[in-house]
Structures are given as structure tokens and as C-alpha cells.
């Protein structure tokens, strides 16, 4: 089933919606992959837009300019917090920063994403946005 974000893309429009961008570290571990999947789920629910952290890291001007206008949510897998640090380096402080391992999910080199873990991260972010 298509989410709201997919429906807009199907219609061929990138028209900005909402006021949130999700930037996940998407790192090479289970928690990195969970961070990305959580961002995808939130975007599909229409809570905001999945955005390219790599584009910010590469200082692509169109992405930096876009990110300056909108509230940013950094989703990191582990305490190294690459996503948050990339945003800080670009002068784009995150309004909310969530670390997957802070929820008691242990980091491992396995890349499988457990749906229940992803759901916990999604709920934590929703809670953070409400608070």
C-alpha cells in the first residue's frame, strides 16, 4: 500500500509538505538500518519527509538551503551520533535527536531489522515530537 509520500511522488510532485525532515544515519549495523526504516515509516505515515543525510554531508547547496527552512529530526543508531554531528557541522541543529541504542536495542553487525524494534523507535520519535 502506498503511503502519502509515495502517492505524491506517483503524481510526479515534490511539492513540500509538512514541516519536518527525518535524517537517519542509516549506518552499517542493525541499529543503523533500524534508524533508516523508522524514518521511512514516519515519512510513509505523512509525519514529514525522509531527507538525504548524505546530501547534507556533501554540502549539496539545494539540500542545505531546504534543511534551513524546516525542523529537523536526527535519528542515529548508536551513541556515535553521526547524523546529529553531520547536521551540527552543516550549521543545522536538530530539533529532536533520537538514538536507537538509548531504547535498549543492542548494536550488532547484523543488518536485519526487527519490526518491533522499528516500531519502538517510531513511537519514541512521535513522543518526542509531541513533547
Amino acid at each position, binding site marked *: 500500500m502506498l503511503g502519502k509520500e509515495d502517492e505524491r511522488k506517483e503524481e*510526479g*510532485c*515534490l*511539492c*513540500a509538505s509538512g514541516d519536518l525532515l527525518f535524517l537517519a544515519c542509516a549506518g552499517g549495523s542493525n541499529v543503523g538500518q533500524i534508524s533508516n526504516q523508522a524514518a521511512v515509516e514516519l515519512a510513509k505515515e505523512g509525519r514529514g*519527509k525522509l*531527507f*538525504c543525510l548524505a*546530501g547534507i554531508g556533501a554540502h*549539496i*547547496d*539545494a*539540500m*542545505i*538551503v*531546504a534543511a534551513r*527552512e*524546516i525542523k529537523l529530526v536526527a535519528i542515529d543508531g548508536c551513541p556515535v551520533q553521526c547524523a546529529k554531528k553531520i547536521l551540527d557541522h552543516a550549521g543545522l541543529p536538530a530539533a529532536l535527536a533520537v538514538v536507537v541504542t538509548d531504547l535498549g536495542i543492542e548494536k550488532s553487525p547484523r543488518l536485519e531489522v526487527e519490526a518491533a524494534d522499528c516500531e519502538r523507535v517510531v513511537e519514541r520519535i512521535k513522543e518526542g515530537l509531541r513533547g
Partner: protein
Amino acid sequence: MMKIEVLGTGCAKCKSLAKNVEKAVAEAGVEAEIVKVESLQEIMNRGVMMTPALFIDGEAVAVGRAPSVAEIKGMLKR
């Protein structure tokens, strides 16, 4: 001559930005080529993930919103 690009696939916001750009250029009295980029593929290949977007001389100055005529005039003076 200044090159101004309006990137958007043609929705209401994109059209509004194009109109504002035309008005700002006319009011500022600057010589500029205004180009509309409507291909979704080209837009995304430029690193634009939210539209509308405004580029002046190849540099992104607004992305994901349509600046007002007054704001665009300010951008033209930079």
C-alpha cells in the same frame, strides 16, 4: 546576463513562484534569463528533493517554498 531557474513540476506553488520571479525581475529592472525546469528527473538530479526551488546563476537560493516578490528582489541584488 543573470540566469534564474524555477524548478517545479507545475503545481500551484511552482506556478506562483514563476509568477513572483517574473514580477521581481520586471520590478528590479534586471536583465535575466528565466528558465522553468519541469522534468522531475532533472529536478531530482540537481539535488532538489522538495519543490518549488529557485536557483540564481546555478546556486540554490530557495528550496521547498515560494519566496515573495520582495524577497526575490532582495536575492537579485546580492
